[in-house]
């Protein structure tokens, strides 16, 4: 008899989701889906709000990467003002954005995924948490906590608050950087770099244990998308969009975010509140793409900072199609972020008091794009003559990976799940593919399910005849 397995909630991800796996009569996986189960409707309820409130309002989309939304939103608002913001403001926003990437990547890697990597996919569920890691490898756990703390402290020193700082505003930032704060930040960088290096070296040693997962996670082929710059190095703050295919070929380059509707469109599937963007010229689903650390390292020539570039080789020698290597790319980006923050903090004009351009709204629409930890993020606003939002459209970093996650779940389930002999490790692997992407479901949405993992026995026409709870 056919069965349906429901994993609810998917744990150790940023946000909550369900996974369902449909088994056929023979107990083989017939289909599987990744369901994002909540929608909040920011696009609707921001209508009528003054655009100056948008950065802080939009930051409430996500408490994990509020800064990404602050930045993308403020950039869209800069366009509404039609001003070029002071250079110092740009640099300060860049530092904030990188600090957020550091803390968010640290969260993803250490708090959420390191239990799988250190303890193995088949460890008992009770141990699979940061607490379990702390027992097994206290240094790794403390490193993770400290690295995240460094990122959060930089955010706090800049914005006055770790989560949802109101510091980023249309036209720039609302207070300059003090010398003391800069020095405090600079003082933390070396320790961060040490942690990053220690972790990368450890990670190098565990990679061989996951060859099977790496291969399975590579079975979904998609395009990759991300921001670029003139140096062809990692770019998080601004720049034209590049899209490459699975073989590394550039299929579109120098795309302007202002014209995103010409190259991007979104699809809706009935089983998820999360929409799926795709490269419009290729249609759906052929045009689906991945974003985030893996995509970014795939589209650039080099990182652009010495230590990160040192480790780029470690990445490049892997199968860079495999979503497993989101982890690899994430660690390298942490290294990059720390180095780049240090460089920006040493810029001579970083303490300048000119950090905000003031203007009335001079354009009726604006698009802001940036790289969030999880990938390209885009905010698009339209305003009326009085500066009130008439329309808002968002393309959320995590949403870009929706298709890859959904199909990834299917591929992993097909590889590991057998109806006759279900075990926890199998199902954990299904979840771990999701963790690799580090989806930030709060960004679009999230929910906690109330059911334990359960297996439903279905008749061929889909009626549930029996539910087995574990």
């Amino acid at each position, binding site marked *: 008899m056919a069965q349906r397995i429901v*994993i609810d*909630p998917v744990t150790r991800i*940023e*946000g909550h989701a369900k996974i*369902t796996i449909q088994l056929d009569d023979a107990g083989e996986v017939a289909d599987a*889906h990744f*369901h*994002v*189960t*909540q*929608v*909040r*409707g920011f696009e*609707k*309820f921001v209508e009528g709000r003054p655009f100056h409130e948008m950065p802080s*309002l939009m930051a*409430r989309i*996500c*408490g*994990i990467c509020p800064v990404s939304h602050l930045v993308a939103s403020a950039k869209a608002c800069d366009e509404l003002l039609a001003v070029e913001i002071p250079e110092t403001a740009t640099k300060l926003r860049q530092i904030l954005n990188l600090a957020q990437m550091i803390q968010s990547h640290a*969260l993803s890697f250490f*708090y*959420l995924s390191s*239990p799988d990597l250190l303890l193995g996919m088949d460890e008992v*569920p*009770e141990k*699979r*948490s*940061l*607490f379990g890691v*702390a027992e097994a490898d206290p240094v790794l*756990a*403390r490193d993770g*906590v*400290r690295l995240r*703390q460094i990122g*959060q402290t930089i955010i706090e020193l800049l914005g006055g608050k*770790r*989560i*949802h700082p109101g510091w980023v505003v249309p036209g720039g930032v609302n207070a300059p950087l003090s010398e003391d704060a800069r020095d405090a930040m600079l003082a933390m960088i070396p320790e961060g770099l040490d942690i990053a290096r220690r972790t990368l070296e450890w990670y190098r040693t565990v990679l061989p244990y996951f060859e099977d997962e790496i291969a399975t996670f590579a079975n979904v082929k998609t395009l990759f998308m991300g921001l670029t710059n003139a140096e062809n190095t990692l770019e998080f703050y601004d720049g034209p969009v590049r899209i490459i295919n699975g073989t590394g070929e550039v299929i579109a380059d120098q795309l302007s975010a202002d014209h995103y509707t010409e190259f991007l*469109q979104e*699809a*809706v*599937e*009935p*089983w*998820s*509140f999360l*929409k799926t963007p795709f490269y419009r010229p290729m249609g*759906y689903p052929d045009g689906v793409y991945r974003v985030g650390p893996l995509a970014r390292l795939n589209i650039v020539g080099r990182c652009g900072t010495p230590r990160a570039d040192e480790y780029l080789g470690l990445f490049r020698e892997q199968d860079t199609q495999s979503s497993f290597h989101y982890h690899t790319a994430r660690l390298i980006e942490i290294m990059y972020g720390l180095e780049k923050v240090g460089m920006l903090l040493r810029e001579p004009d970083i303490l300048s008091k000119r950090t905000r351009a003031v203007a009335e709204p001079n354009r009726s629409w604006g698009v802001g794009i940036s790289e969030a930890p999880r990938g390209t993020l885009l905010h698009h606003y339209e305003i009326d003559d009085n500066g009130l939002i008439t329309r808002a*459209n968002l393309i959320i970093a995590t949403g870009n990976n929706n298709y890859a996650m959904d199909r990834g779940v299917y591929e992993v389930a097909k590889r590991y799940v057998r109806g006759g002999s279900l075990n926890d490790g199998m199902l*954990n692997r299904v979840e771990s593919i999701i963790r690799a992407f580090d989806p930030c479901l*709060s960004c679009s949405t999230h*929910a*906690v399910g*109330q*059911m*334990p*993992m359960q297996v439903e026995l279905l008749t061929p026409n889909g009626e549930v005849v029996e539910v087995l*709870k574990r």
Partner: protein
Amino acid sequence: MTRTKIATVWLDGCSGCHMSFLDIDGALLDLADRIDLVYSPLVDRKDFPDSVDITLVEGAVSSEDDLAKIRKVRAHTRTLVAFGDCAVTGNVPALRNSVGAESVLRRVYLEPDLHAPQVPNLVVPALLNVVKPVHAVVPVDVFIPGCPPSAKTILYALTELLDGRMPDLSNRTRFGA
């Protein structure tokens, strides 16, 4: 000494309160001797345990899943803490209340230029027409306002509760803090 069983759950919010909880940084690992994190987005347990001492709930009640979840959580929790503004006031998720759930769904899934526009309805839960704070649905024992409450506030409240006292949060946090 038995460790206090702690759970954290999130409903409709942004995870920012959970992140602020993590912002207690090293203190989190120090707490490991006193608490047993039995259910949380951070650990792998799928079903809510039968008996939890303290549950921190982040987020507002926004869908039928949330509703079922919070009722279950309440039934199995001794001290329920509304954790952050979304849980305490409805906050930003409740902004949709003046327009209603239906217009949100229409705006997101039908009006834009989409491939296969449709309102998702498989597996995903129905939205409640009115997003509510947690105490509007089940009794709540402790309220910690803030968007998010600071790590310091959270650590204070948790420590007080672990010591068997009711935390006095006045002047430590506020709506919108």
